[in-house]
């Protein structure tokens, strides 16, 4: 077994006085796609925000050999973690192209343009709309933009918070197929939070189920799909 790229130990997260994550443990290995499942309010978003330095935490998160729980969000991005927040998190007033430029904010190399072009190749619709404001895009296009924006920072680990939320099933399918391609071609490791367990488990290597701020179940994705409790709770049968 290889060393984990991300190793989270006894991680808690609190909003004000309220503890939302109660000491969770999980890991993501290099090049893996790992999914965190869980009902609304289980703490999935909070777990990702904790990794990005956006909420108060205790415990440890070791990423690529260094501790990141005590870092500011911008320093965590610079270490190679990109985060597509729930609800896309695009910059509606900025143009599509400017959104991608903001995604590359931490970079100063001269390959930004090439990478932008490859985003446009992946999603030609973004190229067509590159001068339009991001706010004028459809939900599916916004999600494409959000993912592209995150990739523009050349991340080692990509955090995705419910990318399927509010999108039509065919669009979700296309989106997730892309994730698999990116994972294979760019070698980007992915940690995906989802409520759509069916499609998420189909593409993931491993999964965790979060319940009320604690990890309830973990295992290989192929095994979780067949787990009775999970089938009942998250797969509608």
């Amino acid at each position: 077994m290889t060393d984990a790229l991300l190793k989270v130990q006894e991680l808690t997260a609190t909003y004000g006085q309220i503890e939302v994550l109660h000491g969770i443990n999980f890991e993501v290995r290099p090049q893996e796609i790992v999914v965190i499942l869980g009902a609304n309010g289980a703490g999935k978003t909070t777990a990702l925000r904790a990794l990005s330095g956006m909420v108060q935490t205790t415990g440890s998160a070791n990423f690529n050999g260094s501790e990141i729980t005590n870092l500011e969000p911008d320093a965590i991005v610079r270490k190679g973690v990109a985060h597509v927040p729930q609800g896309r998190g695009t910059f509606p007033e900025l143009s599509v192209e400017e959104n991608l430029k903001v995604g590359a904010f931490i970079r100063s190399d001269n390959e930004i343009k090439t990478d932008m072009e490859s985003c446009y190749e992946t999603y030609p619709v973004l190229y067509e709309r590159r001068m339009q404001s991001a706010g004028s895009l459809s939900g599916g296009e916004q999600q494409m933009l959000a993912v592209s924006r995150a990739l523009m920072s050349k991340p080692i680990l990509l955090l995705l918070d419910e990318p399927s939320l509010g999108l039509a099933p065919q669009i979700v399918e296309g989106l997730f197929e892309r994730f698999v391609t990116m994972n294979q071609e760019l070698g980007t490791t992915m940690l995906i939070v989802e409520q759509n367990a069916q499609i998420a488990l189909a593409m993931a290597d491993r999964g965790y189920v979060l319940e009320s701020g604690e990890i309830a179940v973990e295992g290989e994705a192929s095994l979780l799909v067949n787990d009775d409790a999970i089938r009942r709770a998250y797969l509608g049968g």
Partner: protein
Amino acid sequence: MTPYDERTWGADMDLFLQRLFDALTNGSTYALIAVAMVLIFKATTLINFAQGEQAMLGAFIVLQLWKWGIPMWGAVVIGMVFSGILAACLERTFIRKFDPADHLPLVIITLGLFLVINAVAAIIWRFDPLSFPQLFPSGRAVTIGNARLSWYSIFAFGSCLLVLFVLQTLLTKTKIGLAFRAVSSNLESSRLCGIKIGQTLQFGWALAAAAGTLGASIYAANPVLQIEPTIMLRALIFSITAAALGGLDSLWGALIGGLTIGFVQSVVVQYIPFIPNEMTLAAAVVVLLIVLTFRPSGFLGTKTVERV
């Protein structure tokens, strides 16, 4: 029409034109201070009540530098840089430690800064009005009938346009400008893209203060005015109204708002005899209320005024 009528018609037109020209003069100043406030509002949805006093202090620095023998425009540029740096320090010391989403403490801080800067200026320069050097050629540029458009008005307006173009270029063509617009658009996502929020807002404070200092210097250079520590009090209120009128997050809105307020101010004084000069503010506010009733986000704005 009798010759007599023609004469009054001509005189009326002259008077109206003169009021329009006056509007240009005042409106340009209001617009420059309003632009400064818009910059800060865009990024933080916060009104910086100290903006006018920062600008006043900047103008006094310009005056002082000039008295020490620095050429006028050199003094203006140094004064702008100085107030930019001062604003950056103020942001770092007083603003950054507070949660940007919690407005009340921040509003109180900017009101506190207002009082402190005003007091400091009064201690150093006293309350006696001092004459401010001419920034622009004097005299009239155009005379239509009896209405005179001075070089001062033309240059004041031109400076205003120039500042807007420079700001627009900075915000759209530079990396820090892009970061500033990203922070204005989505704070959380900006963080997730690795933007340092504090530094970016600091940049906005510095830019705003520099624009404000230019505005106050131009205002004080008006041949009919002198500079004193309270010079920006009235202008500040008109500028806030102008900013709200134009749309608090729109740079060009600030220009339109400033000119509109300048217009209301000069026309009301002229044509509504029972409204004394001191009541022009009330007239400006009435116009603001009417506009906001039909366009809650102002002429060009996108965010509605919720607070303050």
